[in-house]
């Protein structure tokens, strides 16, 4: 009877430990930042709209033969420097934003931070 109790108790410990381990693992998957890519080609941001989690990083890669930049549109809150042909620029995202290229002001993009 005593040994049966020990086996039962240990099994409970094991199940509880597995539950904890699984919970930690799920939490870590949820918060692991991801890296997203936006290509600048044919004078467009591709994709023009991108959905990310807060803390994710976006890398813009310039595949055009002319230089571009990436600048927050409303207040110019953030901006890359000039990204030459073949160059790239990355930023960790903290909030949703509309952005554009100040060199070619008709080129526009959008970042949506999913809650």
């Amino acid at each position, binding site marked *: 009877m005593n040994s049966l109790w020990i086996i039962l108790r240990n099994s409970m410990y094991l199940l509880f430990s597995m539950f904890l381990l699984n919970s930690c693992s799920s939490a870590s998957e949820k918060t692991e930042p991801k890296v997203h890519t936006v290509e600048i080609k*044919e004078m467009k941001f591709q994709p023009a709209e991108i959905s990310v989690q807060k803390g994710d990083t976006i890398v813009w890669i310039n595949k055009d033969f002319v230089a571009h930049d990436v600048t927050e549109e409303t207040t110019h809150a953030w901006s890359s420097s000039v990204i030459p042909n073949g160059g790239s620029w990355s930023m960790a995202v903290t909030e949703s934003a509309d952005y554009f290229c100040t060199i*070619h002001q*008709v080129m526009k993009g959008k970042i949506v931070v999913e809650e």
Partner: protein
Amino acid sequence: MKIQRQLSSLAIGIIYLATFSFPAFSQENPKLSDAEVASVAVVANQIDINYAELAKEKSRNKEILKFAETMANDHKAVIGQAAALVKKLGVTPKDNVVSQQLLADAEKTKSTLSSKNGKDFDKAYIDNEVAYHKAVISAVEGLLIPETENAELKALLQNILPALRTHLSHAEMVQKQF
């Protein structure tokens, strides 16, 4: 009445530029070799660089100056791409009737622009940029690409079209301020 006359003149000017900047394009397309197509491409880009340099000298308008800087840099980049390709292909750009007519028309336009100052210059410059880019896009699509035999030269011409269309949209956006 005076404004109406000016608008009529402007409309005629735009129609003239769009139709006759590439004279052969308006009537019967000339037969161009790849070397001649390369020459037309380089000349057409150099003309817009020259307009941009004039704007940088004469204008004090922030939007005009920024647009002119973009035109100068982008069209220099196109010439750089064209130069690298013709070197790779072993082709020497060859002067021809289209590039000669382009240069002759550009001289007249530059002379007209040079005679203007202040807001009149800014408006004339951006109006010309709209008309010139429309004419160049039409010519690249309707004359230069169909005439080109070499696949790499054809691809280069196709690759510059998105930039030309973006320049046109940008010019039209700036034009709304005048």
